[in-house]
């Protein structure tokens, strides 16, 4: 018989697995295997800390925090890896063999996001995921006004990258 923690955990997993996977995919430039590992790391952390969750924020915000911190920890671990060139990144994004227009569009977006620095990547992905400035501020730990300024800058950078890549 399943414990209450198992039931709650499975509910959380079902509701948020796609959001976490999408963030991880965007963060690692569309590398499906690494994203899957990162997603598992996030949910291992969720399981470990579920008992201490006091409801000060929503589960979604809480999971965002864990996802952002797990992604940043991944950078620390993998810092020694060589950096990618744009062509390498493009080859790395998913669906290389059968690119429908939709898949091509998301690949282009992953490639562009992958060229931002790590924090900017996470910020823009939360905006893409329709999160408001207050939620993002809560996740990052800074003022919403500061978030607004940062996001404005990141949007500009992303647009420039897409234009340079010929997709603007």
């Amino acid at each position, binding site marked *: 018989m399943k414990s209450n923690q198992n039931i709650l955990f499975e509910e959380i997993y079902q509701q948020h697995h796609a959001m976490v996977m999408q963030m991880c995919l965007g963060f690692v430039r569309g590398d499906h295997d690494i994203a899957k590992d990162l997603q598992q790391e996030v949910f291992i952390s969720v399981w470990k800390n579920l008992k201490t969750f006091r409801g000060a924020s929503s589960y979604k915000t809480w999971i965002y*925090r864990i996802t952002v911190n797990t992604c*940043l920890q991944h950078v620390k671990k993998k810092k020694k890896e060589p950096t990618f060139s744009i062509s390498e990144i493009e080859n790395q994004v998913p669906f290389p063999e059968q690119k429908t227009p*939709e898949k091509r569009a*998301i690949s282009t977006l992953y490639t562009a996001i992958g060229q931002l620095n790590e924090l900017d990547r996470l910020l823009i992905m939360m905006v893409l*995921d329709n999160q408001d400035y207050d939620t993002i501020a809560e996740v990052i730990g800074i003022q919403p006004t500061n978030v607004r300024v940062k996001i404005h800058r990141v*949007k500009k950078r992303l647009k420039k990258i897409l234009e340079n890549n010929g997709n603007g």
Partner: protein
Amino acid sequence: MVMDNDFKEFQNEWNNNKNNIELSPNGINTLYDKIKKKEKANYFFYYGTIIILLATLIVISLFFYYVAPVKEILSRIGAGLMICGLIVRIGIEIISIGKAKRMNTIHNTLTATENTIRFHQFRKVIHSIVAPIIVGLYTIGFYMITPEFSLYISRWNLLLIDISYIVIAIILFFVIRKGIKKEMVILSEIMDLRNEITE
């Protein structure tokens, strides 16, 4: 306005792709397996070093109590220094575990980053100041015992032990230096991240 329209398009692409991410049928079971493995690995990560150090402490203490109960004051101080060095090392390991556990991913990014900085600053101090002191104490203790040991061990064997200790000390020096360098690199990267967050 143009940028906002473009961005709306990106958001649509993003959300369409998210909606296409399917739950793998065996995903939750795989996750439970990983959780079990991770819990085991964490246990060894946190307590493995302490268990090894405690075992060493017990072996050394038993050695000086039953096998070679040194009689001269100089030797007793030496044995005490070696044992104290190990006790301090175990204490540091326990503090280190507490600080490592505080680097939890549930905090907001700024707090998590600051906790990580504190942890690595602590480790830097340990590597650069405390570890050399402990090794120094252990070495002084070791050489304080050797005069009494020389009464029972042949000169060649004693020489061999002394030389091997010097080799170990040299290796330790490089290990500590590598540890300091590693901590410095990590610290500077995390500080850059903190600056990015707060700027």
